[in-house]
């Protein structure tokens, strides 16, 4: 069956120039250009808020300082479950950088739903959740770079260099970026709940604490009782913080491959969940007036 677009392409369109035929690579390139543009817009937006940016980085230094004081006492007699004090501080630098760089995207969605502005986005040539994801992921990437740099410098000052740093960080970096994507998708999913709930902030708090515990934010999963550790290691929260940080402090090529694969699976799953949730949400939308 021929579509109207196919006929136009064959006819050369109004301008006389032939239309581009949609191929798989052409579609991917067009989508990459579109969302790359939104991502850059989100990234540029971050650089404007310099004061918040400095405070966020300062807070990371204080958190690492407190953690150093705590773990210095706990690990005074040597490593527990394989983590030395040096590994622990560098591990926390990575998990904290991932957590602090993720934005509060759910608030924007909540506002859009409350004000009804979300209705206008339906007419745009891209899905609303994809736009918000690209915008916030771009911002998160910009926040991540200085947070990682400051986290590493703080850890270096507090406990000294991390053995095999270059190898560890080269394996961990792709995983950190994928972990950030998982985090952003979670917050997008929570934001979409605003179509059903007046205030989604409590859902965000609970999600934050799930990452805090099962993502191994402050305490590596290896400290858990074995049965709980086994469950936690396969959860998306672990792929968001624990595995990327563990790769950085205990690099292993085989573990890196499993981590990337696990992250891609969870990204696909969460993106699918967001799409389904948004599709269900659009059915609940009502527009009044003009």
């Amino acid at each position, binding site marked *: 069956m021929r579509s109207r677009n196919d006929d136009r392409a064959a006819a050369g369109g109004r301008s006389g120039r032939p239309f581009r035929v949609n191929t798989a690579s052409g579609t991917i390139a067009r989508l990459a250009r579109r969302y790359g543009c939104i991502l850059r817009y989100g990234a540029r937006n971050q650089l404007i808020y310099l*004061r*918040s940016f*400095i*405070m966020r980085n*300062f*807070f990371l230094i*204080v*958190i690492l*300082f*407190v953690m150093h*004081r*705590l773990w*210095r*006492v*706990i690990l005074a007699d040597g490593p*527990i*479950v394989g983590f030395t004090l040096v590994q622990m501080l560098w591990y926390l630098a990575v998990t904290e950088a991932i957590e602090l760089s993720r934005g509060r995207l759910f608030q924007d969605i909540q506002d859009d739903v409350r004000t009804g502005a979300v209705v206008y986005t339906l007419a745009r040539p891209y899905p609303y959740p994809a736009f918000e994801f690209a915008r916030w992921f771009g911002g998160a990437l910009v926040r991540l770079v200085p947070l990682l740099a400051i986290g590493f410098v703080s850890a270096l000052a507090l406990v000294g260099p991390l053995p095999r740093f270059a190898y560890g960080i080269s394996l961990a970096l792709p995983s950190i970026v994928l972990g950030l994507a998982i985090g952003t998708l979670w917050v997008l999913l929570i934001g979409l709940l605003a179509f059903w*709930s*007046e*205030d989604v*902030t*409590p*859902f965000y*708090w*609970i999600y*934050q*604490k*799930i990452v*805090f*515990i099962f993502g191994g934010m*402050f*305490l590596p999963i290896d*400290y*858990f*009782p074995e049965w709980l550790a086994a469950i936690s290691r396969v959860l998306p929260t672990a792929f968001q913080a624990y595995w990327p940080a563990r790769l950085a402090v205990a690099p292993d090529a085989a573990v890196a491959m499993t981590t990337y694969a696990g992250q891609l699976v969870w990204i696909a799953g969460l993106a699918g969940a967001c799409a389904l949730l948004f599709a269900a949400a659009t059915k609940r939308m009502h527009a009044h007036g003009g």
Partner: protein
Amino acid sequence: MKLMRLFSHYVKLNLQSAMEYRAAFLTQVFGMILNNSAFIVFWLVLFRAVGDDIAGWGFTAVMFLWSITAFGFGLASVFLGNALYLSRIIYTGELDVYLLQPKPILPNVLWSRSIVSGWGDAAYGLVLFGLTQPLSVAGIAIFLGFGVALALVLTAIRVIYHSLTFYFGNAEDFATTAGELVILFSMYPGGVFDGPTMWLLHSVIPAALVAFIPAQLFASFDTTLLLAVLAADALIIAGAVIVFARGVRRYESGNRIGARL
């Protein structure tokens, strides 16, 4: 007396306003309780892995820190919630509205906003205290008294740092961070900090005054220490009143037209 009447009016109005959206109120309260409970898991797992002693602090002592911090933080949010927004009130010119009212400015500003999730924090603190601490009349009195003191000192610290907006322009991020640091340090065993950090925790980030020393008094009461810490708390609160009052003298109206409903 007049101030107490004003305070009770604000409490009533804020509560009525929160109950207007009952579902959101309950979601926020229970969400906050669940949110805070996550930290119990962290400390349980940690103490299980390392034994019940971190720099002289056991699980029960750390839970005292958490309960008093959550309770005091909750009280500050519910009854003195506007302290968090003070910078914004100053730099947007919203202070004009309060200056025109025939009431003392600082209490009027601080009481006029309540943060709903604070109810969840306060309830969590009370329940955690009841579940994890040995209960006695003196112990409960120390907990409640220092919970209120924490709320007042935390608010005083917020007022002092937000008042910098009068002098140096928008200090919102700095002041918010300073308030968060008081809470952050209050929730970790005091024994892990030493040297210059301890000096900071007794002065500019007074976590020791609002949490570590009350925990010490709860474990073994000492009248001299009690009087010393109360004097220090009073000094910080008086400092906040003075800094704010001096700041108001430098305040320039933005001629902003607004109304408080």
